[in-house]
């Protein structure tokens, strides 16, 4: 076996731990060829794990380094990297955790991981101009009900059945990591990149539903109906969304 595609296929199988057979194409030069290949196997694993750690520091702190590493191994087996961009390594982790931990007391960790992925992904999302509140005020009264919102590309919506934002905040590097009562209720979070860094905003469930509906293309009127957000609560929510600079355009 000497064709390049065969060597790369066999080398890849070694890296993924799918074989430990001595490769006839590798020279040992005084040590077992397998020992040399294990250096590459360990490097490849370590690079994958480091990428996951960079994206999911809160989850790692919450579950501990050992369990996080175990989860990382299972995840890599199921979802090996497909991209030369290490940012992409963690993209499927929330989905993997939802399947892997579903039905267990740890299922909520998938929600926490989705919040962390949203933070990481918002951090590299495209730049965008933002709309001023005046753009809504400038619409004729009869146009307001049919107004459509476009949000900035970095906006991510995370609905937690547990207090995911409280857990996230309690496990920041400068926080003490104190336990959060998971039975204290779900939290809905808007994530976006502000002028300097990624910002996380806690919103009420009905507010979240309104933003979710508008983000999916509903008019203001339709979003109010779908979300059941009281009309009286709308001005304050819109004021915050404009102030947070998450609305890119109003039409």
């Amino acid at each position, binding site marked *: 076996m000497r064709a390049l595609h065969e*060597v790369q296929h066999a080398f890849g199988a070694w890296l993924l731990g799918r074989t430990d057979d001595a490769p006839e194409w590798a020279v040992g030069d005084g040590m077992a060829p397998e020992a040399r290949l294990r250096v*590459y196997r360990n490097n490849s694993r370590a690079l994958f794990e480091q990428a996951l750690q960079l994206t999911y520091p809160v989850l790692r702190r919450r579950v501990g380094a050992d369990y996080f590493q175990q989860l990382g191994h299972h995840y890599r087996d199921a979802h090996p990297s497909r991209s030369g961009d290490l940012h992409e*390594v963690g993209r499927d982790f929330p989905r993997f955790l939802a399947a892997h931990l579903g039905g267990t007391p740890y299922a909520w960790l998938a929600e926490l991981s989705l919040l962390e992925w949203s933070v990481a992904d918002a951090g590299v999302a495209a730049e965008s101009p933002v709309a001023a509140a005046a753009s809504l005020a400038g619409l004729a009264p009869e146009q307001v009900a049919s107004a459509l919102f476009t949000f900035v590309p970095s906006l991510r919506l995370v609905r937690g059945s547990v207090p995911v934002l409280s857990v996230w905040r309690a496990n920041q590097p400068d926080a003490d990591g104190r336990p959060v009562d998971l039975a204290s209720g779900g939290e809905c979070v808007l994530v976006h990149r502000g002028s300097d860094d990624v910002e996380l905003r806690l919103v009420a469930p009905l507010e979240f539903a309104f933003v979710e509906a508008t983000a999916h293309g509903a008019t203001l009127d339709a979003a109010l109906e779908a979300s059941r957000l009281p009309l009286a609560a709308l001005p304050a929510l819109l004021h915050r969304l404009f102030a947070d600079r998450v609305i890119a355009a109003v039409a």
Partner: protein
Amino acid sequence: MTSGRAGGLALPARAGIGLRSAHFAEFAAGRPDVAFLEVHTENYFHDGGRERALLERLRADYPVSLHGVGLALGSVEPLDRAHVARVAAAVRRFEPAAVSEHACWGRADGVHFNDLLPLPFTDEAVLGLAARVGELQDALGRRILVENVSQYLRFRHSTLLEGEFLAAVVAESGCGVLLDVNNLYVNSVNVGFDPLATIDAIPVGAVGEIHLAGHQRRDIDGRPLLLDDHGSRVCEDVWALYGRALERFGPVATLIEWDTNLPPLDTLLAEARRADAALGGCHARAA
């Protein structure tokens, strides 16, 4: 748009350092004295973000080298077109003085190993790598530099020496070489390649940039294995080899590459000054 860009079409023949997030605050606050900055392309090729915004500002004051680590050009699988498009967008945005990638593979059967894996030195590997380098150069509309990688094993069926392999890729694709002198040294210990023979086989004029870095020693089965971890100072043997490279290639832009166990910025700048001193001697001899 070309206004606001520092430097010209080539990197200055002085020492630069890698821009790493641990040193962002120092670069945001001032302009440390260094001749150029190198970044990993994939950390800066997204559509937005803090890194991209900082580099947009810094490129007004420093020539930039975009150093790719993710294209795995020697893989048999076709190039990742979306990845190439992002690299091309980064090249348009940052107008770098140099663009580089590696003489390695990294993808097989749809899986990316995110590592710089060694190629056998065969005619087949030369042609495959050169074809993908050519594709990338066409997409970018410019010549790239290709870096020699560190090796922890060699292939039984290699028919070329390391330097012959690199020279053949240069001849086939028209690319230049990013000569990593630490990798030459690591490979001499790990797999017995002759670093001076490699230097002598690369055409003078092909080398557009040099990398210097530290490595870590392990012992396996009673034999030393040097791990190319970019986590310490450049060792004296590598400095000596660097001198030999400068003798052959003349003064070439030189990067102090440090990625793990990052020291204070001053340590990197001190290493860069040492490289500058060697380059200064080289300039003096050339005058």
